[in-house]
């Protein structure tokens, strides 16, 4: 296969990754890394570097949707970002010293967990916590947002456990080239009791900054092939845009489960590659 054809296929892969990532809510990284490593046999460190840039692109591309809505809790985002960026920095450093097979195995496990979580019912608590913890009060994390013309005030709890989960989310993001959005929403939605809409909007900002922390490492380390990255970024932005429009017209609940089942198979393949080098 000629180089131009390979790049064209990667571009189409990025497009598919953007669409699937957007429809499943898992993010494009879960599609791009297996595609580049299993199909094109690109070294996993290069695939992770390229995927992280794709994640910054999709986060940046979808950010205007949230700007000005008042949904993002910027104080919570900035405070938790200390943890996520620290984890990302550590993850990027560690990734370059770990054997590729271990990375494949960890990727398989995390991907499998995220695919199973996609089968779980969506959680949507509009009100959030009823009181703020002392640390949340000190950090002024409680806020409000508007929904259906009504102003909804919410409180915040579980700041320390949320901070801890963010370190892990940042670490995994840098190690595997994923957005770790599922873990970030888990920390904010389930542990800190932020309303679901607020968690999602805040997580979008954080995913971009976390990916930038580790993508900078991979880029300056010489792990980012510019043509591959360009094809993936263009494909993922376009795919993300197409996916966000398909969400409105397709039976997303069913499609999400079908794609999650496919992703579960990919997870198994990554795990087998990691454990048995198949």
């Amino acid at each position: 296969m000629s180089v131009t054809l390979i790049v064209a296929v990667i571009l189409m892969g990025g497009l598919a990754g953007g669409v699937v990532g957007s429809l499943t809510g898992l993010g494009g990284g879960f599609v791009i890394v297996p595609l580049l490593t299993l199909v094109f046999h690109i070294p996993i460190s290069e695939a992770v570097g390229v995927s992280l840039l794709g994640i910054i692109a999709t986060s940046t591309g979808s950010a205007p949707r949230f700007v000005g809505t008042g949904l993002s809790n910027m104080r919570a985002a900035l405070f938790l970002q200390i943890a996520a960026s620290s984890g990302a920095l550590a993850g990027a450093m560690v990734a370059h010293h770990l054997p590729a097979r271990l990375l494949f195995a960890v990727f398989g496990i995390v991907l499998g967990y995220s695919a199973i979580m996609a089968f779980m019912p969506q959680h949507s608590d509009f009100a959030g916590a009823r009181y703020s913890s002392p640390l949340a009060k000190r950090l002024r994390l409680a806020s409000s947002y508007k929904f259906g013309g009504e102003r909804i005030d919410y409180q915040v709890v579980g700041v320390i456990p949320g901070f801890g989960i963010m370190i892990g989310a940042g670490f995994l993001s840098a190690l595997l080239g994923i957005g770790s959005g599922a873990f970030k929403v888990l920390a904010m939605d389930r542990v800190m009791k932020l309303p679901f809409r607020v968690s999602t909007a805040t997580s979008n900002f954080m995913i971009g900054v976390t990916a930038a922390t580790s993508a900078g490492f991979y880029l300056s380390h010489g792990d980012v092939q510019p043509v591959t990255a360009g094809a993936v970024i263009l494909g993922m932005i376009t795919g993300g845009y197409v996916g966000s429009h398909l969400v409105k017209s397709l039976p997303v609940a069913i499609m999400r489960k079908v794609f999650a089942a496919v992703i579960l198979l990919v997870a198994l393949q990554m795990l087998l590659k990691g454990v048995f080098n198949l």
Partner: protein
Amino acid sequence: MNQLVRERRLLNTWILRTSIGACLLLIMVGLAMFFLHGVRLPEPPRGSLWEILRQAIRRGVRLHSDAFLDVAIVVLLLTPMARLLAGVYVSARARDWLYAGIGLLVLALVVSGVIAGQFGI
């Protein structure tokens, strides 16, 4: 306070639209040139962002496809940093020194990622 919220919204919207527009344009030009003339994949860039940009501008004069792609990647990488900087600016204007400081700390962590990669830590 409303004036500051409006300022933050305008700044963020401007940063996001400019960067994503510039990045997409540069990538499309770079990929179009690669599809027209590319026979092999170029070497990945490495070193500081400044060094990557300097090399890209040098190759860009000779219309190398990777020069456009390298600049697009750097623009993309700088976007979250610019959003952080905008947040720090707005927090400082509101005399919210705690969050101005936290923003600067996060920015330092992001920049240290580039520096650590450059020295192969």
